[in-house]
């Protein structure tokens, strides 16, 4: 595969980076990423991946655009109100870069469809807004051996980690079970600053690009990055693989065990 002169120009500012180069650009072109949720995290993540020239970009979201989304979900505009988020996302991503093969799935990720939706992609970005989906993405990614980026955001805080099964710690190595519904507030109840979602979603896109271009030894694995925008503190909390983890350790089905 070769890059056309127009592609070389479009992507020149990242091809110049020694860690990317022409080879990295071709790998991006040949790679596929699935973004779960076209919301506060998924919008910036998908936007940057389309801009970077990812070959195939899947978007999963069953919701429609609401006025209260627009303060942070930058894939959608005022005129998109009431439209399916995946449709508005597709329009915006293709306006930015028509070379990207955008695949939309206008459904909610569930236990029934998760493996089928995630399997055809090289990397998954979890931009979901609830613990059930976050644990589901983790467990399916571990069972499929699929690398993915986890993130959570609320108010002025975010946290994110990358999971590369079977080597790295997974989200369940960090937190064993989801809290009971209502025990921890989500964005809908507690609020979120749009730019904080943008910061964390951009880190997720960065991790996907790094994985694809060959920087897989430098990913945000075995640690959780925590970001507090109020104090502007960014920390890395170590997350060792848990040998008893129910998703990837001794507590998991035999075929999924990697840290037992």
């Amino acid at each position, binding site marked *: 595969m070769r890059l056309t002169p127009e592609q070389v120009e479009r992507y020149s500012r990242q091809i110049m980076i020694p860690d990317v180069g022409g080879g990295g650009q071709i790998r991006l072109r040949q790679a596929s990423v699935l973004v779960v949720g076209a919301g506060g995290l998924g919008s910036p993540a998908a936007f940057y991946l389309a801009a970077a020239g990812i070959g195939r970009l899947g978007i999963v979201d069953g919701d429609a655009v609401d006025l209260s989304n627009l303060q942070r979900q930058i894939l959608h505009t005022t005129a998109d109100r009431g439209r399916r988020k995946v449709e508005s996302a597709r329009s915006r991503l293709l306006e930015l870069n028509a070379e990207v093969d955008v695949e939309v799935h206008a459904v909610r990720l569930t236990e029934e469809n998760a493996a089928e939706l995630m399997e055809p992609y090289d990397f998954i970005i979890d931009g979901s807004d609830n613990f059930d989906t976050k644990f589901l993405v983790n467990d399916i990614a571990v069972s499929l051996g699929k690398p993915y980026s986890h993130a*959570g955001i609320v108010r*002025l805080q975010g946290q994110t980690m990358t999971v590369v099964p079977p080597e790295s710690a997974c989200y369940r190595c*960090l937190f064993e079970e989801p*809290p009971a519904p209502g025990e*921890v507030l989500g*964005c*809908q109840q507690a609020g979120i600053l749009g730019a904080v979602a943008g910061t964390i979603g951009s880190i997720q896109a960065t991790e996907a690009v790094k994985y694809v271009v060959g920087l897989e030894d430098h990913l945000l694995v075995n640690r959780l990055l*925590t970001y507090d925008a*109020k104090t502007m503190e960014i920390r890395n909390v170590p997350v*060792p693989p848990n040998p008893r983890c129910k998703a990837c350790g001794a507590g998991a089905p035999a075929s999924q065990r990697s840290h037992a």
Partner: protein
Amino acid sequence: MSVRVRVPTPLRKFTQGSDEVDVNGDTVLAMLEDLEQKHPGIKERIMDESGKVRRFVNVYVNGDDIRFLQNVDTALKDGDSISIVPAIAGGL
């Protein structure tokens, strides 16, 4: 034993907004009890009724997860640094 606890944003309402507080205790459990004495209401956000650390909250002693040490019985020494990290749900 005097140790310093780094308080995550959602729990700072119990510490009058402080992001770090100094408490005493020779184990994690004793430290949490002293933390509760000084900042009532904070302990039940970290531990459940049965005395276990909640599953969506992690406690670190000098960067090490207490689940891989002796959990709440983990011994503390003067000057140890404790971090509390809760899970965050949002995304859309």
